[in-house]
């Protein structure tokens, strides 16, 4: 460490201190970092990265953005600096080749700072860019974590991938410059690497080991939100692999530019070991313990969950989601307040469920619960997920059990949809949101946390008619006729008649429209 404490940046190596001056290397690195900013690709992609990230953080379109799961937010920070990394790869390469291209090698080769230390400076010139990336990543994560609806835990290892990727890209650019000293190599190498990575993943069928060789590993589906202990991403090992790879590439560049010191060789060997350990460890796939935990969470979630009671109902959630019970309770209370008969006082058990057996890539539906009075809620919340949950609650209130809701196609659909929409501030928006094709007329499938139901055109007409009328009047009518409205097999025409709406002509329920 003693060499690092030498601070005479401007002075060259002195006779009394024959050790190389690292302060000079740092000074050169600062110069090179400033020079990098002058390259249009770097400046443009850096601006775009920072600007775009800021824009998306403060202009979220989807209601679900207000309820982020931090174990996914950390991963989402990784794709942002993708282009910045490529720009740095190309431009660091050009910087490294600058003196060769301009023919100043002959002058510079006799300078006090040997080529290998200039290589070190080029690698170090990337540190400010990695630091900016780290700041953006942290800002992104902090902003999401501060949202009132945020749940879960982020992983520092996942957050580290963005800055490490930037470093790796730059180090690769330096190495390429030292191995193939022509500026043309870098742009071609970018295309080559992209094409090659497509083929390696295609050629190995997306195997775990080849998937994790890529610096940024995205998940295919991206719609499944799992509890953080079920993610099964070897994030820490991947960080180790990336760190080892960066060191290996950087020390490789130093070796290629004539740095033959013992420490460099030992360091390169150490980096190789780190990389290999990381690469092997990250490709082990799903461990039996994790598979068992995923199985348990999918099949018997009650073993992992804790429950709270709100207004007579019970809300059971995975530990990371217990804070969301109040949001769920608001929806349950709103829907139940419109119901009549025993349903208006029926205690419900809201159970959070997730299909974790297929990992993050899986996108399979959750089967409905058969036990009466139980409702499923998913791991995502906000946006369309809210009225969808309301559909689940309403069908349990009307039919008694979630599994019966899926078969629902008779006149009871009208009652279910009234319960969902009657208490809503924007009923038409909610109606469009829960319908698969976002329509508000005609027939459509309606989504729910488990099995959805289908609305015929006639049922849609009746529901629209109800929404146009004063709410109190409809609510009173629903309460009055609750038994008739919820009788199995009741026709849409009969429901319309009970609620005082003009019966649609030629309406046939369950006709498989």
């Amino acid at each position, binding site marked *: 460490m003693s060499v690092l404490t030498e601070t005479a940046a401007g002075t060259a190596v002195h006779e009394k201190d024959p050790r190389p001056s690292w302060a000079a290397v740092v000074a050169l690195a600062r110069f090179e970092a400033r020079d990098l900013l002058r*390259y*249009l690709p770097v400046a443009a*992609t850096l601006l*775009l990265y920072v600007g775009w990230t800021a824009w998306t953080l403060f202009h979220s379109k989807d209601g679900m953005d207000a309820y982020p799961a931090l174990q996914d937010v950390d991963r989402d920070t990784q794709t942002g600096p993708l282009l910045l990394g490529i720009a740095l790869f190309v431009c660091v390469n050009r910087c490294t080749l600058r003196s060769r291209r301009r023919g100043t090698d002959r002058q510079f080769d006799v300078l006090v700072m040997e080529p290998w230390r200039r290589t070190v400076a080029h690698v170090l010139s990337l540190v400010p860019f990695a630091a900016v990336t780290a700041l953006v990543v942290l800002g992104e994560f902090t902003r999401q974590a501060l949202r009132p609806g945020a749940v879960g835990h982020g992983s520092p290892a996942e957050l580290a991938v963005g800055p490490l990727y930037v470093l790796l890209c730059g180090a690769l650019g330096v190495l390429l410059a030292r191995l193939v000293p022509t500026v043309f190599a870098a*742009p*071609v190498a970018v295309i080559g690497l992209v094409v090659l990575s497509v083929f390696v993943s*295609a050629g190995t069928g997306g195997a775990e080991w080849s998937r994790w060789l890529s610096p940024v590993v995205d998940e295919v589906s991206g719609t499944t939100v799992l509890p953080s202990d079920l993610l099964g991403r070897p994030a820490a090992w991947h960080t180790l692999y990336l760190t080892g790879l960066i060191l290996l590439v950087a020390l490789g560049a130093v070796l290629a530019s004539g740095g033959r010191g013992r420490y460099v060789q030992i360091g390169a060997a150490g980096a190789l070991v780190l990389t290999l350990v990381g690469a092997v460890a990250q490709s082990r796939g799903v461990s039996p313990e994790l598979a068992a935990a995923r199985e348990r969470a999918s099949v018997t979630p009650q073993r992992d969950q804790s429950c709270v009671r709100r207004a007579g109902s019970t809300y059971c959630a995975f530990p990371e989601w217990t804070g969301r019970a109040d949001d769920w309770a608001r929806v349950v209370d709103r829907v139940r307040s419109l119901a009549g008969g025993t349903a208006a006082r029926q205690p419900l058990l809201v159970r959070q469920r997730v299909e974790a057996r297929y990992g993050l890539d899986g996108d399979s539906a959750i089967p409905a619960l058969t036990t009466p009075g139980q409702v499923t809620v998913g791991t995502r919340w906000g946006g369309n997920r809210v009225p969808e949950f309301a559909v689940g609650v309403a069908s349990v209130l009307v039919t008694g059990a979630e599994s019966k809701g899926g078969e629902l196609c008779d006149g009871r659909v009208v009652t279910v949809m009234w319960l969902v929409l009657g208490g809503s501030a924007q009923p038409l928006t909610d109606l469009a949101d829960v319908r698969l094709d976002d329509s508000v007329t005609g027939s459509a499938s309606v989504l729910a946390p488990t099995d959805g139901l289908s609305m015929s055109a006639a049922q849609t007409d009746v529901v629209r008619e109800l929404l146009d009328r004063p709410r109190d009047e409809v609510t009173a009518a629903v309460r009055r006729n609750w038994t008739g409205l919820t009788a199995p097999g009741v026709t849409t025409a009969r429901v319309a008649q009970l609620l005082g709406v003009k019966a649609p002509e030629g309406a046939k329920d369950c006709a498989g429209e």
Partner: protein
Amino acid sequence: MVEVGRRRSGVSRGLVVAVGRTVPWRVVGVGAVVGLLVVWLPRLLGGTPDAWLGLNLLRAAALVFALGLAFLLDDPARRLTTPVPTRRWARTGLRVALVTPVAAVWWTAALLLVPAQSRPPVGPVTLEAGATAALALAAACVVVRFTEEPEPGASVAAGLLTFALLAPALIPSRWDLFVPVGDPAWAAAHVRWAAVLTAAVVTAVLCAPEPVRSLRSLRAAS
């Protein structure tokens, strides 16, 4: 003054050979070879690309070749060759003319390397490749026209690559250029590609001649 040789304007055989030697063939060649490798890779690995992959491989190959073309106007001796009687547009045009047949043969080879069932419609994809190459040349022409840089290739290639990577993300969807085969917007996208090609060629032609007056004196005169 002694009269040496016969002097006549225009393009002579000697000029073709001499300019042909100054074309950075090595860079163009590397671009061509890497481009072919890109297209050949699925066969090398024993697979057959689907239509999507076939199209995008050809796009990637065209981009690699265009990156090579970005170096076409590099002239290390530019300071010495600027004040010669042979006009700049003739020298530039000759370089382009020399490289065009090579590009045509190369592109045919690239198309043939994609199996027939996954090969996109030849006309439109050739239009895309032509527009990409024209963009590279136009950018090089602009840099040569407005700067005194003897070797603008590296900057042009880096700029083109950045542009190519940013374009799919930044171009609004109604002006999308990168459309998969069979998409309803395929025809409209290729009208836009034709517009890109035209604009690039016009830019290149406008920038090819050497300015007689400086920009400032033109501004002062108007």
